[in-house]
């Protein structure tokens, strides 16, 4: 690797998380605006997400329950910052050649682990129940999600996201070849984002927002940043797997990310909350069945 390549890579590694975060902030805004429209409100102004983060980080009262609480937040944010370099953007591949889609999905568990550790040290029963529910939710949605990952990787014959994008640019979107997997993926996304009807681990009226209960100031701010990253990552990963990653063009890519994310958000505001066991049985039934049917379709036709 020569010096120019190295400099280009360094620039990508800096830009990718920064862009992901900025797009994520817009997605937060989108989510709030959709919610507002559906509830016939005006919704927040354009800079509200950024203002919220600044406010959280600048608050005077910042309460920690110990070092692991702090480290948990660092892991939650840092894990996503790192993960963005494994997820290609138009014109930038980052380190996607060094870690494939499997590495990416296991990377995405690190922020959750960090959050779980941080909440654990808070010694709050609500937080602890929230984490227990969040991990249960993961068991629910991850099974259909990995089925989707398998089907997609088998279809493209690679686990490298860069290759997947290139193949779709040559032969058309994965969505058309794998419609069932695309639907199963979208359903899994709903759980992964923890949106209604699957927001069992936040459950404000039941367990006082669960993992967030002891989070204030920059701790809550960290979770806010994490949410922005999470929304972007989910949308971009979906666009990469099924929509050709915007065919390498930024406007298309952004449009795809926003459209993909608008679907779970719109669904979310229509629904009340499921119980935990309802969520598991739902995920193990419908998206799993769809995903397996999708794999059968991909492997045999």
């Amino acid at each position: 690797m020569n010096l120019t390549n190295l400099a280009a890579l360094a620039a990508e590694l800096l830009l990718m998380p920064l862009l992901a975060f900025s797009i994520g902030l817009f997605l937060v805004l989108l989510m709030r605006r959709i919610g507002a429209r559906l509830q016939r409100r005006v919704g927040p102004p354009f800079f509200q997400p950024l203002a919220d983060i600044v406010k959280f980080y600048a608050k005077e009262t910042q309460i920690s329950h110990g070092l692991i609480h702090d480290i948990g937040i660092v892991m939650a944010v840092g894990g996503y910052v790192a993960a963005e370099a494994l997820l290609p953007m138009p014109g930038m591949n980052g380190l996607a050649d060094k870690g494939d889609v499997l590495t990416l999905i296991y990377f995405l568990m690190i922020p959750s682990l960090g959050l779980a550790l941080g909440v654990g040290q808070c010694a709050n029963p609500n937080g602890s129940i929230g984490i227990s529910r969040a991990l249960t939710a993961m068991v629910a949605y991850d099974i259909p999600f990995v089925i989707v990952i398998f089907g997609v990787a088998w279809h493209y014959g690679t686990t490298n996201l860069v290759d997947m994008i290139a193949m779709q640019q040559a032969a058309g979107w994965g969505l058309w070849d794998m419609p069932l997997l695309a639907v199963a993926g979208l359903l899994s996304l709903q759980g992964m984002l923890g949106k209604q009807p699957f927001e069992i681990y936040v459950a404000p009226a039941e367990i006082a927002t669960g993992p967030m209960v002891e989070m204030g100031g920059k701790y809550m701010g960290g979770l806010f940043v994490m949410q922005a990253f999470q929304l972007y990552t989910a949308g971009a990963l979906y666009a990469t797997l099924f929509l050709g990653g915007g065919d390498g063009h930024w406007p298309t890519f952004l449009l795809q990310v926003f459209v993909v994310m608008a679907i779970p958000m719109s669904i979310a505001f229509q629904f009340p909350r499921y119980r935990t066991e309802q969520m598991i049985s739902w995920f193990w039934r419908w998206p799993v069945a769809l995903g397996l049917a999708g794999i059968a379709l991909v492997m045999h036709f």
Partner: protein
Amino acid sequence: MTPLDTLFILSACTLAVAWAFGRRPAAGGLIAVLYGGQILALAKMSGLASGALTMIAASPSFEVLGQALSWRFDGPAWFFALITLGAAFASAWFMAGEWGEGYRRKGGRLGLLQVALALNVSSMLLLLASGDLLSLFIGWELMSWASFLLMLSAGGVAVRWAFKYLIYALGGAMALLGALAWIHAQAGSLQYAAVAGLFATLSPGQAWTLVLAFAAGFGIKMALLPFHLWQGPAYAETPGPGSAFLGAISSRMGLFGILVVLVHLAGLDLLDRLLIPFTHLDARDLLGWVGAFTLIVPTFIAVRQHDARHLLAWHGIGQGGYMLIGVMQGDALGSAGGLLHVFNYATYQAALFLVVTAVVHRTGTADLNKLGGLVTRMPLSFLVMLVGIIGLAGLPPMNGFVSKWLIYRDLISSGRPLMFVATVIGTLGTIISVYKLIHNTFLGQLRMEHEDIREAPWSMLAPMLGLIVIVFLTGLMPGLVLDWIAPVQAALGLPVLDHSLGGVDLPNGGLDMLWVVGLLFAGFGVGALLFLAGNRHRYVHPLDNYAGGHFLTTEVRYHYSDDFYPGLMHLIGGWYRGSIQWLERALVSALDFLAQWSQAWFRSAQPALWLLGVTVFALWWVV
């Protein structure tokens, strides 16, 4: 004298020292040094690991009843011996200081523990070195009895489980002995070459019988389904360092047996030819699926444990499933993943058992309902457990991720969706279970009686920290261990994985952990900067928190482990039927009934009448 002789002599010396002085805590250091010496002797044979040498023989060889017995080390033996000695070294070091003294003070027989450990190591080395099926069987039996002794050494409740192990182990040994006797009758020899030749000429029925006998014999040691019931409690009830050793490597001897006999001598091609009627499956698929169920079922049994030692021991069984799946895949990627997992698993499992033992040493309990909040008192132990569980759960940046990644990747490229989903279900079960472990031990509320707990002493911390350094470094540079695995694959007749220091470079999706780990820590750095950019925080007491209008005090306990995942158990709780437990109990009752019946028959029938009957019959026959 060959380097292998040196190793055996050192191993015998260790055993002798353990026998003579093992009960004195002061001798613990010497014993640990002797294990270190054995590792050095193994390092002298590193030509086996680099592929420069294929075999180093031991000088002694015998002839018994026309069968030549010989011992030698090759690539696989070296690799498994390294893990064995490493686990023994860490356990012995852990025992050498305060733990040994405490164990003895509480009435434990330290000498017996040391002897049992040394005996385990010696017999396992002998097993690994076996050059023919007869010496393999001798090593196998010695090892089985040695691990029985180690499990027994705590006395009390452990005895019951040790005996249960013994019954299973004897059953396995009978299967092996039967297979050996049949092979000897057919081939007239138990030399590896003759056995491999015999396998090539068998009819499908004969081959099935032999494969099943060997798979059952070795599988019982690995606690493969449906023989999994003995291992969890038996390992968990063994005294701490002993359980770390057993948990790390002992069951893997079963895998070693499968590698030598089924993969190398019989060959995976033979397994492919043994079809299961009315299905698309063959013997190799069968073993792969046994691995998958061994992964899932014990892992979800572990989720329900509320004793930390039992939880870990059940996970140990589950992790063996990954290894078997990987090996049965049989290609370069999968088998390397399975073999790498043997090493990786041993490092973090030993660390986890040791840290739980350290917690027991300080608090007196491994009950997850009675612990919590210890991170502020034992921060380094927390770090050990954290690294250990990240390894066990198979998340980056620890080494467990790499071996699992190789297996996942291979299952994708060979097009096995259900097996792939099974491995991920195992991982998810592991994640939820290990979070419960670390949360209920180190996070959450600190109990009043644990206010004055101190960090574990350095004699215990040092080996644990050493182990987690290995867990991290071999995660960062998996190529170090993959270098040792290449000769193992070559010696077993498996394709060799092409790798680099950071992982594997595949054209369609590779892995370079040097970059991945660097990236992750860079991300953490950014996260930390962002955290520090916020306003200054202050620390408050853990009880100073929001609980919906209630006040939390140390009297109000909220730690629980019995139903930590109520939503999940609400759904899958009914699936824990205990069918195999039921089957085991039914077998025991049936045997018991038969025994009682025959005894009653023998006692109640009229002996005089029987004697008369037999005499009349004999007279009639004579006449």
